[in-house]
Structure formats: structure tokens, C-alpha cells
């Protein structure tokens, strides 16, 4: 298996090549990588791949990890099913 075929985001099955491709197109921020590749948008919300993506982005763009804030956290921190949201005001009947 070649290095660039390596899965980085386990949930969305995004490879190193996928991430490097968007970086080669000029992407420099974590949020952009996430939006364009879907790395970190899966069920785990980037908990596993976040640091790996930051590492690749730092190496490829010459930025330090300190310059790379993680992609923006927005609620929900866990995947919510629509059923749960629909049940946000539990009725008693």
C-alpha cells in the first residue's frame, strides 16, 4: 500500500492523498480541509483524525502546529439522530 493511499479519517475514509490534494490547491486551514475533504465530518467528529490532519497540513504548508487551530467545534459534539432532536420537548401523553 502506498503512503498516499493511507486512510487518515477512519469514519469518512479520507486518504492522505485526498488531503494533500486540497492542500495543493491552496488550502491552509483546518476548517477548509474538513469542509473540502469531509475528513473529520464523520460519526466521531474528528476525534481520531484531527491531530493527524493537522500534522499533514503543518508539514505540507510549512506552518507550525501552533498556527493551526482545530476546526471549529459546533454543537452537537456527538451525532444526534433526528428522532432525539424531535424529542427535545418530551410530552407526557
Amino acid at each position, binding site marked *: 500500500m502506498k503512503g498516499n493511499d493511507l486512510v487518515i479519517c477512519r469514519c469518512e475514509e479520507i486518504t492522505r492523498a485526498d488531503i494533500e490534494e486540497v492542500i495543493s490547491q491552496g488550502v491552509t486551514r483546518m476548517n477548509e480541509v474538513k469542509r473540502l475533504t469531509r475528513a473529520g465530518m464523520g460519526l466521531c467528529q474528528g476525534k*481520531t483524525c484531527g491531530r493527524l490532519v493537522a500534522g499533514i497540513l503543518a508539514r505540507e504548508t510549512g506552518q507550525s*502546529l501552533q498556527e493551526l487551530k482545530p476546526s471549529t467545534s459546533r*454543537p452537537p459534539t456527538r451525532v444526534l439522530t433526528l428522532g432525539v432532536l424531535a*424529542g427535545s420537548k418530551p410530552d407526557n401523553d
Partner: protein
Amino acid sequence: MGKTEIAVVGGGAAGMTAAIESARAGAQVTIIDENEQPGGQLFKQIHKFFGSGVHRAGTRGVQIGRDLLREAEEAGVQTRLNTVVYGIFPDKRLGLICGDHTEELASEIIILATGANENALSFPGWTLPGVMGAGATQTLININRVLPGRRILMVGAGNVGLIVSYQLLQAGADVIAVIEGLSYIGGYGVHASKIRRAGVPILTGFTVLRAEGKESVERAVIAQVDEKWQPISGSEEVLEVETICLAVGLSPLSELAWMAGCRFSFLPALGGWVPAHDENMQCNLPGIYVAGDLAGIEEASTAMEEGRLAGLAAAESLGYLPPEEGRKRKEELRNRLAALRIGSFGEGRATAKKKLMRAMCEK
């Protein structure tokens, strides 16, 4: 909408101690934890802790966990289990998922003690069943009481890698080797000595090249690395293992703190991005406190002292402690924390913590 004075997010070592201190001072405290049981990672820490008497040195984490549960109950802490905090909103409202519905909980103070997440290491074959976090292995063997494999490769010789290797031996597995990319063992020498005595080799300057196997791990290929972390050709070795454990560090689990708008600093000695806090563990946002691994990756013993400090300071800010008593007890806790951050293993963290506190003053 539910209401509480102090909401503690996360019922691990830091969250429990924070809740106990606040509740003992007289505050109304609610712990929210996503698990079936509180205690966080304490119940899988079956080894004896370091430190001194006040840190409960020589006592196993699992026993400390049991004691904290009892103390929390005695102190009147409310605990909401199986409840996920999915969001943190203005005016210190928390969005909760409880089973099949969502709820809001309003609070005057939020103490975030969300803990840490295990770092990953990507290499060909790392998605195969049989590659897992060292913490995952620890949960399986010490909580679930099942072995994920007989023959194990541990990647990482920090304290987590060394301790989990020892616990795997105790559970009846064979640890074929511990490998470490650095040229030295990062964890305590005594943890390393224990597993060396049990016949486990520790190979420094080695990395895992790939995991191989059809449907799950059947073997690992490791190799020596040079100073630039590049594998040295010809140094490859094949290890017949069925499980590869990754113990390559932890990162603060910080989504809620980011969402709340906390100011962060990047401090490698504390595990990466860490919310800035003052000497009361309060963030730049008044009424939001952090403690434990979220506030910088350290040991469970430091997490407990930070939890106590945050809990006490939070209760004090609500007027539950006479100022003189609050000052004295916080000072005592800070001394206890300082004692755990000295020596060659602690200095780096002590310096990073100072930077974190200075970051509070920056605009």
C-alpha cells in the same frame, strides 16, 4: 429547563473531586457523564499511584475511584449518567442528550472536566481490527475482562504504554515488544523495569511500518528509525502479533471549551491546545472552570488536585466559603499540585502551566 448551581461536565478523576469539594462547601452540584458509571478512567487504573500521602500514593486508582463515588454520594452530589453534553450555550446553559430526548440545564458555574482523547498513529494497516488505542485495551482487560489478543505489540514507551503493557501481562497476555520512536523511554524507569524483568523487550528508536493481515492483524513490521524519523532500510523485523496497541500520547478533549469560547494556548508539554486558566482553574470566561486532562495532560493524581481546586474556587465564588478559609485551602491545594510538578518528569509541565496562566492576561 433544569437548574443547578454548579454543573460539572465529566465524572472522572477531576470532575468527581471538583463536585465533591463544591458540594461539601454547600453548593448544589450536578455531574453530567456520558457513561453508565461515573469514575472516568480511574476504574481501569489498577496500579498504585505515585506522589505522597495527600495524593493517596501507594493506593490503586480503582480503589480511589470507589472512594470518590462514596464521597460524592455523601456530599450530596447529583449525578446524571448516560447523558451527553452536546453543546454549551450563552448564560451557561448546557444542551444535554438523555436517551431519546434533549434537555437544557441552566447553571451558574460550569466546570469542564472532559478529560482526554487518545492520539492516533497512521500507518498502512492501522484500520485493521486488532489495532487499537492502549486505553481501549485497558478498558477491555480491566473493565470488560476480555483479552483483545494473546500476543501484543505496544507502540509507545511513555507511562501509558509501559503501564498498559504491565497490565496486559497481569491479564495473561504476552507483550512481544514495546517500541518507541524516540531514542529514550519517556515513562518512569520503574514502570519500564517492571516489564523488562518480566521479559518484555523495549526497543527505542523503532517505529511500526505496517500492520499486516487479511481480516485482522496477523503480524506487525517494525523498523529502526534515524534521527529524522525515517525508517532505516534493512532494519525491518516481523513480529507475530494479533494486537497492536497505540500509546502515542493524549490530547485534551476540548470541543466544549472551544464551543464556549475559551481562550486556548498551544503547549506541547500539556498535550497540544489547552484552555488558558488562572490559578483558580477559571478560564477567561467568568464562571467557566477547567480541570484535569482538559486543562493539560498530566497524571490522575494532578487531575484530582486540580478538580479539588476548581470545585473549591467555584463554591467560594458563590459565597459558600469564608474568604480566609478559601484562601488557605486553595493555597494548600496549589502546594500539593506543585509537589507533583517537580523533577525531570514534572518541570516541563510546571513551566507550561505558568505559560497557560500568563495567557490569561494577554489581550
